[in-house]
């Protein structure tokens, strides 16, 4: 049986995906910045059917945390799969006013995630099987004035994941990049101008199925693929004049 390591279980999508794994009776390791704060969540996942749940503290800014998580993951019997849902989104207007905070967005969405997956990669290669599902964003497909700092961090992460997929595929590990559109989470609740908002549990269901099919890049819900294709193909002289 495979053990699912869910990084960032306190995010709505992370929790929804952990529930899906629990439904399937999987063993789980779930992480959050503060493990003590997710004890009740771990109990919930056990009651929902997870055969075992371990909690771990993981602050992606702390190399020590990444190291101990890697050690914990090494001790897992059988194969290991990773669901990577950690990240943060700072408001672009706020970032424009606080240029010194730019690094924060890159740390949370690119540097930390890449360091963590780099650290987990060798042990997954050792095990020789498993899946990595990692959350990037449609925001990374093309920089837009309304959130290009976050978008550029996610663009970097998307490129990282495509390279990781390339590296891991010879070792029996499948890497799936997920680009969700608008999802109905605590972050988006009450935000104006959202449309076609998907529920975290529907996204989790989609990811589970897509991972079984070993899809490489998944837009969730699927129609975001069309939307982003259109956005991607607008010629730059026109694009730069748009308000997006």
């Amino acid at each position, binding site marked *: 049986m495979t053990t699912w390591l869910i990084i960032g279980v306190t995010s709505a999508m992370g929790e929804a995906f952990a529930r899906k794994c629990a439904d399937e009776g999987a063993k789980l390791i779930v992480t959050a910045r503060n493990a003590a704060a997710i004890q009740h969540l771990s109990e*919930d996942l056990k009651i929902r059917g997870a055969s075992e749940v371990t909690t771990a503290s993981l602050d992606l800014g702390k190399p020590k945390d990444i190291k101990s998580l890697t050690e914990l993951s090494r001790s897992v019997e059988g194969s290991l799969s990773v669901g990577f849902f950690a990240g943060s989104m700072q408001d672009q207007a706020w970032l424009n006013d606080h240029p010194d905070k730019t690094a924060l967005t890159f740390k949370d969405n690119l540097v930390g995630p890449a360091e963590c997956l780099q650290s987990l990669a060798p042990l997954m290669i050792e095990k020789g099987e498993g899946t990595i599902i990692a959350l990037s964003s449609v925001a990374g497909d093309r920089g837009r004035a309304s959130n290009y700092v976050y978008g550029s961090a996610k663009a970097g992460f998307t490129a990282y994941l495509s390279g990781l997929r390339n590296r891991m595929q010879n070792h029996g590990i499948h890497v799936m990049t997920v680009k969700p559109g608008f999802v109905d989470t605590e972050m988006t609740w009450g935000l104006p101008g959202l449309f076609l908002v998907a529920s975290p549990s529907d996204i989790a269901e989609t990811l589970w199925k897509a991972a079984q099919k070993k899809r490489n890049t998944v837009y969730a819900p699927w129609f975001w693929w069309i939307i982003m294709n259109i956005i991607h193909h607008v010629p730059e002289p026109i694009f730069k004049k748009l308000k997006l």
Partner: protein
Amino acid sequence: MRWKSDTFKGWGQHLSAQMTLSRPSRLHGLLDAFKEQPGPALGGLRSYGDAALKSGGHGHLMTRMDRFLSFDTETGILTAEAGITMRDILDVTLPKGWGPSALPGTGFATLGGCIAMDVHGKDHRTAGNFSAQVLSLDLLKPDGKTQTLSRDKNKRLFFATLGGLGQTGIISQATLQLHEATQNVRVKKQSFENLEEGMALLEANDARFAVAWIDALATGLQLGRGVLETSDYTEGDPKARSQSVKSVPFTAPKFAMSKWPVKLFNRFRYRRYLSRPSENARFVDVQYPLDQVLGWNRLYGKDGFHQFQACFPLTKSDAAMRALCEKISASQAASPLVVMKRLGPSGESLLGFPQEGFTLAVDFQHRKEAAKLLSELHDITRAHEGRVYLAKDSAAKPQDVEIGYSAGIAEWQDLVLKADPKKSMITDLVQRLELRS
């Protein structure tokens, strides 16, 4: 805390309110939001009328606080956050041999909502109100303090909170004593030719679950004809596969619920029902036939619909049921969903709905005639000392609920005033029916 300002509707789609809601995912988020803006809790928004609405006010949507906190498979004691749905609970507990009782007709109702409305199910005669299985609950009071309530601790406030329409505060979590249950039930169906026969069958029934579906368009000698559906838990497996979930993609035109389509539907249903008089089925399919059609409330058109439900003391039931059925069939305005049940004794909640006797529930599309018909049904209810079901009501006036709830309301008002002196928990329903004054 993020807030969302929008128009929110009761399940009947007729009543709506402009509200600003928080939707916390965790207890500390709820505490923060509640401190910022105290206001009533909202759950699955399955109450038909305005029970969960507060025009121009703030509220707290509990649907993301939906975690199991503990479940003892030896004793059947379950603790969960208040936003969890009945469907989620059943998914987990039934395979382990346990189930909640007193389930309302939709699995999307939340734990907190079921307690605050003190709902009942097709098993009322054997299982009582929903609150009968509630061992304790945590109440976030308007003063910002959380109190644990049970039959041993703060008993009076506990009874004011069960069925208390959210007026004492927000239920953040609750502990239930589940009963032994199975995933399947043995369903039996039997037709009856008129109202008296239907009531006699319900009276004599000894199955755990019982409900009578009435063809509200039948008149004369056939007035009140219908089908009795009873069921009991069984270990036996169902033969038929359960149907897939469908959804209503758009709001239907008004004529979809006019007389002839309804007549046809009732005839079809009658035939299909009796084609298999006895069979095994999944409990959730029998319990939640309407949940197979997501958004079925849109079938009633853009103006929505009303649901009327009242229950009567046993001694008044014969006359009340007959008067209601006559009025409904004469109007020829009812939907196919007319339901009659035999209820057991009242529960402990001060504003509880069920009382020993019969209850009738019926839907009406919102039309000009509907208001007049509803007010006539309320007249009949008053005349027969009936209680109007507040979880469903969208049309009653203060005098329509006065007699029915006279037993517990004075004590309830005292306790609510003490818990919420600033009236921050007041809802449109409570305001409309002047329940707190």
